């Protein structure tokens, strides 16, 4: 049971220094044990061990914080995205939820790969993607009793996505199509066919998930909240869904190209394609880590979809109320 008072005492006092001293003592305490197994250490190694212990402690803490959805910068990002207090709460909740699903999914993917084939990059990305789709499909909050309101706004997918990202997704799907045909024509069934079909399945699932994000209902809301909701849909489709889908798509393509490349690596076209796709997958993942919200462009911050895209003039907004 976590005790708030203990945490307060721990954080507000000079405890960080105490922890550092304790870790150093722990490092020195390891000396007799290491001596007993025939390892003698100098001062440098001793401090190295202490640093490793501190690093291990820090890693474990961060791991548990992320799995527990203790989001340290979600509120700050929300403040950057909108000035409205209620909208900030809405955005912060989405950030915490999306990151938690992705993190748990990614960690589960890594754990799965650890037990199975060891394809950590691929299964980590599959986990992130699964978490992202589940996050955006999750029903948030409980149904409210009494009168319900609904906003009857025509929304289209293209208003809530980034054109560039969608084109990359279509490119990935095109490559998946090509590899599927090639697998069928060449008679190379098995993993090459499964890999290319997985690419097509991925793009299909992501497009459906994006569409569901766009068309999911919302009640009639005050203007700031409506803008925040538009912004959330845009971020969900781009940062939460499209980016991980691109990373996973490239990773799946790399795996498929790798099957055709064989053990010779970069000596043939398929091997080079495998390498390029793998690098692209890692690059996109790196940009999208922590949802990529710390990399929002100035344009996006200045013209969120609530004003520049989804909130454009040709959008018809009709609010109505009815009893549930």
């Amino acid at each position: 049971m976590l005790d708030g008072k203990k945490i307060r005492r721990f954080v507000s006092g000079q405890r960080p220094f105490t922890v550092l001293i304790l870790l150093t003592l722990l490092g020195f305490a390891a000396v007799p044990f290491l001596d007993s197994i025939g390892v003698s250490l100098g001062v440098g190694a001793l401090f190295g061990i202490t640093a490793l212990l501190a690093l291990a402690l820090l890693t474990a803490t961060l791991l548990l914080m992320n799995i527990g959805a203790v989001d340290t910068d979600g509120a700050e990002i929300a403040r950057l995205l909108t000035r409205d207090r209620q909208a900030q709460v809405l955005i912060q909740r989405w950030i915490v939820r999306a990151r938690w699903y992705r993190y748990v999914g990614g960690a589960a993917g890594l754990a799965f790969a650890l037990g199975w084939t060891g394809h950590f990059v691929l299964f980590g990305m599959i986990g992130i993607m699964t978490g992202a789709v589940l996050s955006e499909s999750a029903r948030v909050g409980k149904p409210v009793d009494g009168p319900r309101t609904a906003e009857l706004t025509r929304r289209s997918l293209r208003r809530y996505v980034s054109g560039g990202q969608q084109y990359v997704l279509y490119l990935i799907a095109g490559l998946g199509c090509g590899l599927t045909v090639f697998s069928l024509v060449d008679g190379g069934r098995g993993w090459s066919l499964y890999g290319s079909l997985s690419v097509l399945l991925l793009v299909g699932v992501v497009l459906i998930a994006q569409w569901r994000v766009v068309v999911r209902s919302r009640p009639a809301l005050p203007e700031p909240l409506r803008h925040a909701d538009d912004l959330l849909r845009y971020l969900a489709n781009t940062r939460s869904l499209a980016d991980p889908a691109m990373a996973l798509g490239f990773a799946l393509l790399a795996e498929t190209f790798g099957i055709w490349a064989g053990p010779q690596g970069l000596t043939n076209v398929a091997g080079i394609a495998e390498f390029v796709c793998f690098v692209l997958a890692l690059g996109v993942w790196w940009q999208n880590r922590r949802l990529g919200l710390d990399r929002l462009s100035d344009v996006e911050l200045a013209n969120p979809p609530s004003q520049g895209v989804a909130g454009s003039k040709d959008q018809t907004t009709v609010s109505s109320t009815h009893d549930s």
Partner: protein
Amino acid sequence: MSEGEPSGLGARVQEVAPEVLEQLVPQLPGIKRRLGVGLVVILLASIVGVGLGKGYVVADPLSADFEVQEAVVSSFGNGDDVYVQFAIPNRGRRDIQLDRVYRDNGLNPRVAALAGVPETKPELGIFWGRSSSYADGVPSILNYVGSRRDLGVNEDPQSFAGDLTSNLVELPVTVAGDASIIVALIVPARRCGESAITLDSIAAEVRFASIQRLSPTRTERFDVADDVDVWAVKETGEIAQAADLNEAICEVVG
């Protein structure tokens, strides 16, 4: 700042902590719930992965249902970090740890022949495989030496040697693919500690040494004499790499 008040980091922490805790403490029930759910999900994923991994090893590269294109020892060490790399037509490469390969009633004979390893895992001792990590592309013979834990820590090289030799009567070496030359060296352990081993110095001292030129697809068996002293096996096409070999030997025999 009055005397006794914290300064620097301490003061900063005292300033920020109450605000952080005000937000954090009400969230603790939710944090605990998500922490529990997250850990359970990760645990289940690892269990499923391990379960599938067991089936994967049995059903995939060890199955007789498909042709294995190539199987090589891709890395080596003393025990747990030895992998066999399988190349299966249209199914890509799979790196599988030898301990897992041998977990289920031995290794498929065709795979074993391709990798140059025994069909059943030796309780201790050495078996050979071809390395894909060899710099110039010439497959080389590698040794897999049981870790000291597996062998039983024994500081007496002579008694240790007795166990080893009893398991090394035959050393099958298979040459396949584009291999044209394999040089196999069997080195006496008493050479441990030397900074380098040269071909000439070995030839003068070893009880059993075999330096063979093997043609592709030919299989050779090296019969080891019963009175072999403590020795370990390693290979290389280049004698200049024998320093590594020396370390491997010393690691085994202590």
